[in-house]
């Protein structure tokens, strides 16, 4: 751990010759100037999946190497380098490109390389698990794809449901009777990665973002030490009480709040039409009327004075998510929601309720009703209108 921190320091300070640090080295004199200090903190946070508290963000607390380690000891401890035994992988846009049940799937070079690595890890005894917010039948169908290197049997356990992934990981740890410290979690969503980092800091969370570096990172996490080392670490690990791990947030709701999510839900503009159309064509799981709108359809709808088309955009600490949902409301004696759809990437973050409350506001004092076309894919939303006091007009798909 110390070595890694020194590497980061040298990388940030960027001198011709790497600095040999001692406990008394004054970091500011060594070149950790104000801007570099922030770069250093950013890199530390990324590398160790931690978040330094505001009260610790003073140069004083990082004045010397000794001081720095004192400050960081509450965030990073040497015991954190546990042997990893379990890899929990997301499915959509990780094992394959695309979202099962929503769009055609394919396997590119990156996914193929990742699957080969998982095969290798499986053969070495690493326990593979799946954790996805999709539907089990969609995932199972995806595994039947010809290009898949992995089979369902490679995975010892799975949690394919709508529960938050932190709860799912806790369940898996309980089922496998292993400490969460031995878990590696791979997901393409910054939200999910952040959730695990904050709720289960003992799990190593790897974002499956662009490029192949993350695959290398997983490879290095599972590179096995000698048998003796492994046993010693294992013994040590077993003594640990996993309840000691300090989760920064006690619930997914608290974590959501910490993301400082901002949503903007307002009448759709001309520029938003292409994305709104694309979203309606691609969305199945949270598409209550299974409405599909072409750009032309939406253009006509936004010009109709009896219709309100809403676009829901969102951003958070991780970045701008752009338009994540849309709705079409027709006002008459009743206000009828003809279209209501949300990207599956933002399920269960309260966006459904935000979109609905904006529709309620747009409906004014008129009774709000919604068209529901039930399908296997949108089954999790069959009761959504009813639960939220919206009159339901059920239609055949």
């Amino acid at each position, binding site marked *: 751990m110390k070595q890694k921190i020194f590497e980061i320091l040298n990388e940030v300070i960027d001198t011709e010759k790497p600095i040999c640090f001692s406990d008394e080295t004054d970091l500011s004199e060594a070149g950790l100037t104000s801007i570099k200090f922030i770069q250093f903190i950013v890199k530390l946070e990324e590398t160790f999946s931690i978040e330094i*508290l*505001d*009260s610790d*963000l003073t140069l004083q607390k990082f004045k010397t190497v000794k001081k720095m380690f004192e400050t960081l000891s509450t965030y990073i401890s040497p015991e954190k380098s546990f042997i990893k035994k379990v890899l929990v992988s997301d499915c959509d846009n990780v094992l394959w490109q695309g979202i099962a049940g929503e769009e055609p799937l394919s396997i590119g070079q990156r996914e193929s390389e990742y699957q080969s690595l998982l095969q290798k890890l499986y053969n070495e005894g690493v326990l593979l698990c799946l954790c996805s917010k999709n539907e089990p039948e969609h995932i199972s169908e995806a595994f039947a794809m010809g290009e898949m290197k992995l089979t369902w049997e490679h995975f010892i356990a799975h949690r394919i449901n709508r529960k938050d992934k932190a709860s799912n990981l806790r369940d898996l740890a309980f089922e496998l009777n292993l400490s969460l410290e031995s878990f590696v979690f791979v997901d393409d969503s910054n939200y999910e990665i952040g959730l695990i980092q904050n709720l289960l800091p003992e799990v190593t969370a790897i974002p499956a973002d662009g490029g192949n570096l993350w695959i290398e990172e997983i490879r290095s996490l599972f590179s096995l030490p000698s048998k003796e080392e492994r046993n010693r670490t294992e013994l040590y690990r077993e003594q640990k009480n996993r309840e000691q791990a300090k989760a920064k947030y006690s619930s997914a709701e608290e974590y959501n709040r*910490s993301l*400082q999510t901002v949503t*903007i839900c307002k009448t759709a503009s001309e520029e938003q039409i292409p994305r709104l159309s694309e979203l309606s064509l691609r969305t199945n799981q949270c598409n209550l009327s299974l409405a599909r709108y072409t750009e032309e359809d939406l253009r006509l709808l936004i010009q109709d004075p009896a219709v309100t088309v809403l676009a829901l955009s969102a951003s958070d*600490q991780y970045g701008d998510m752009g338009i994540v949902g849309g709705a079409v409301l027709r006002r008459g004696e009743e206000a009828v929601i003809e279209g209501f759809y949300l990207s599956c990437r933002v399920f269960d973050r309260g966006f459904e309720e935000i979109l609905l409350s904006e529709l309620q506001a747009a409906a004014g004092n008129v009774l709000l009703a919604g068209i529901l076309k039930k399908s296997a894919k949108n089954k999790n939303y069959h009761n959504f209108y009813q639960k939220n006091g919206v009159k339901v007009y059920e239609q055949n798909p």
Partner: protein
Amino acid sequence: MNKILELVCHILNQAYKKKLTDGELFDLFSQHKCAGLLYELSCPKEKQQEIAFYKMLNRNIIYVRYQSCASIFTQLEKQKIPYAVIKGAVLSLSLYGNAFVRRSGDIDLLICRNDADRIKQLLLSEGFIQGRITEQGIVPFSRYELLYYTAQTHQLAPFIRKTNNPLCPYVNVDVNFDLLWGEANRSLTMDFVLSKTELVSICNVTVRKLKTEMEFISLCLHHYKDMNSLYLLYKGKLKLGLFCDLYAYLSNAAPDPKHLAELCDTLSVSLYVKKCISDTEKVFGKNTLTQRYLQYLHCPNLPDTYGLAKTEIHPWPFALPERLFVDIRSYFDQTLSLEEKEKIKLNNTVMML
């Protein structure tokens, strides 16, 4: 207040070498941020309407702002987190006995750095977001920006929350850890500063403010920065209003001179406070009010210089009050070193964050 009005009119008449009309004085008071004096003038009717409108607007904004934050103040008391509201409405109350005279853009909280995490959690749980206001609404700061604020300034990145009031669509809370500036290379002991607070009511919301003597120190440190920072001077922050505030505070809030001097000694800020009072005296002329305070403040030399960091201190080429009416920006363009100009540019970039 009439005394200050008289003094300020005299200064302005002298500076502009003529007897200024009330209309002209109104414009100059606005330009020089002499908020308290605007209401004292007998202005033409259209100006009076303008004043009445801004009074109403300011009252509404402050009302919305404080009511929106009422639960935060309750929580701060409940959780026994030391804090004080500084500047804005509370200062206006001390200066003019009226919370609505001064205009401000936010609520400024002064806290101990050690409490930053608790206060951040409190504000986030109340729906505040650390971000900037754009045409599309509030956009959260990136982690890098959040880190920049906390590590490089004496405050957390601003907290913003949307309201339902079109007159005040957003409430902005700034959380400060210190009254000094980065160039001072030291911090005030906030535990001590925040041990000197008292409760006041603003728009029926009970908040903590600094006690008179500590509040005056806080005002002096804030204004000292405006009077000395190269960046702020370049931005035109040196205004007659700064000295009006200081004079009005001494005159209306009447801090105890001995107690003030003791606190200044304890916090090692006598130089800054004495310089502020001494410069006020230079603007308004020698008088018993400022003398009453200057005699107790221990600081042998008061250099007539500007610049906050030791490396950027320069002697003033303009005396007071003439300094208030010269084009400092042009003077700086001609005289500052490249390095100093770069620093101003960097500050500008940072403030655009």
